[in-house]
């Protein structure tokens, strides 16, 4: 046989460079080229995953805000505001305050004057207009009672509401079951949010698995040839997983940017009201949420591809 195949001299130099170049070529470059070539079949996976991640980001931020809100609410639920008559006698107020302070069920009692109440109201969303619309101060002075156990709030309310210093029309802030109602609503919202994310996640994973399956089938011959010439398993499977990772990271990046931008816009537009409606959501939290969304996209894309490859690509 003329010019017979001669076993080449094994390269002793630049071995690492050759390995790195070949890995990059067969794993990443090949995957990127195929991803671009199969964009039309990847587009549904990309868009559904972007939508999922964006909604997950929003739900995550909302969940974080609701968690903070719940903490605030649980703290506030054990505070009983005892509203005082405008014409209450100072001695009566003093006596009532002492009586409450000495009660073993009470942790602390603070006095809020009418002026302080007005000032506080002006910092609440929507209330400044109400406060400004009246010539006189419509907000009553109050004793703010921090009750040790939320279960004792009703008893303290019953004890004070007939007191001479207390406003007979609107004696206290006590609302039976209000805290439980808030908790029930928050629980419902959380379950609904999680179910929605799970449903979207299922759709996104299914669409991604199918898009990778389509890619495997469209490159069946190439896969067969690679397997027959002795390509290791990772070299055959790897590009498909990298393709999924590309889809996931692009979806994650897009969704992360939109999530961050929306949170930033919310913070910038109405910082006072935003912090009331979404407590704890700061620029740092929004950036963290965007990063998590990106990482979730990367994981979702590569994980779905791995599942698809394991299921549809035989050894």
């Amino acid at each position, binding site marked *: *046989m003329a010019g*017979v195949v001669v076993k080449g001299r094994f*390269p002793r130099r630049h071995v690492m460079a*050759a390995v790195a170049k070949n*890995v990059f070529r067969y794993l990443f470059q090949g995957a990127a080229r195929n991803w671009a070539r199969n964009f039309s079949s990847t587009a549904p996976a990309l868009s559904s995953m972007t939508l999922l991640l964006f909604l997950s980001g929003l739900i995550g931020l909302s969940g974080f805000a609701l968690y903070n809100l719940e903490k605030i609410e649980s703290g506030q639920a054990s505070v009983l505001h005892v509203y005082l008559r405008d014409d209450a006698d100072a001695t009566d107020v003093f006596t009532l305050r002492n009586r409450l302070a000495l009660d073993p069920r009470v942790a602390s009692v603070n006095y809020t004057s009418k002026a302080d109440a007005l000032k506080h109201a002006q910092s609440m969303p929507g209330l400044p207009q109400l406060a400004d619309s009246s010539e006189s101060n419509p907000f009553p002075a109050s004793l703010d009672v921090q009750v040790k156990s939320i279960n004792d709030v009703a008893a303290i309310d019953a004890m004070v509401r007939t007191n001479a210093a207390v406003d007979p029309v609107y004696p206290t802030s006590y609302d039976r079951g209000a805290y439980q109602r808030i908790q029930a609503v928050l629980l419902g919202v959380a379950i609904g949010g999680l179910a929605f994310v799970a449903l979207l996640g299922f759709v996104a994973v299914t669409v991604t698995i199918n898009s990778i399956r389509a890619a495997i089938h469209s490159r069946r011959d190439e896969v067969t*040839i690679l397997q*027959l010439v*002795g390509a*290791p*398993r990772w070299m055959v499977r790897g590009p498909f997983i990298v393709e999924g990772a590309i889809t996931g990271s692009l979806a994650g990046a897009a969704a992360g940017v939109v999530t961050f931008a929306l949170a930033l816009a919310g913070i910038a537009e109405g910082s006072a009201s935003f912090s009331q409606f979404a407590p704890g959501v700061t620029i740092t939290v929004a950036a963290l949420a965007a990063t998590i969304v990106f990482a979730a996209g990367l994981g979702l894309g590569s994980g779905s591809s791995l599942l698809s490859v394991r299921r549809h690509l035989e050894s």
Partner: protein
Amino acid sequence: MPDRPIVEFNGVTRAYGSRLALDDLNLALEPGELTFLVGPSGAGKTTLLKLINREVRPTKGEVWIDGIAAHSLKASHVAELRRRVGVVFQDYKLLPRLTARENVALALQVGDLRVSDHEARERALDALEAVGLGDRGDALPHELSGGQQQRVAVARAVVRQPPLLIADEPTGNLDVETAWGIMDLLEDIAAFGITVLVATHNIEIVTRLQRRVLTLVDGRLVRDQPAGQTGRMAWLAWS
């Protein structure tokens, strides 16, 4: 001490459901031997080649390829076996987007990532030259004739100098003259020390070359004719 056979089948049975594709097969192929595998369609020739390349596992028995126990090989180690087996198909199986040289170089680099582009290019060109296509390295498969594409496939199969080359109907899509060219090439490869197993229906080639002939019928090895003999192609009665 004699060389261990490159291919060894010990009591190999392969069933697809209730149908036996191969039934209690025993055979051994020595280094540098060119052997024909003949038999009617459905006799089990392709299954035998697939067992060698570990595309399927035997239902029963042992398959040894160059000292590797293919019958019990884990999926994660199949690539190691396949790097020792060059494969040529009737339909060439070249990647259409790669040039002839790139198709050959691919087999080198996917098998050994340490092979640099320069070395792969040089060795691929050497292999193409050896099959008479030294000047067509930059041609894409669709720019080559069937015979030339098959030569590229042969170059790809031997570029790593495997101890074994299996060919499934390598001349099936070629005219007579081109088919003889491919067979000459396979003889040269065997002369170089590589064991070559060719599954074929081409009686003229089998009878004229007078190499060892294994005849399979209904999954059974019905005749093992040594090289240098001319036997009747009894299996023709079944085809």
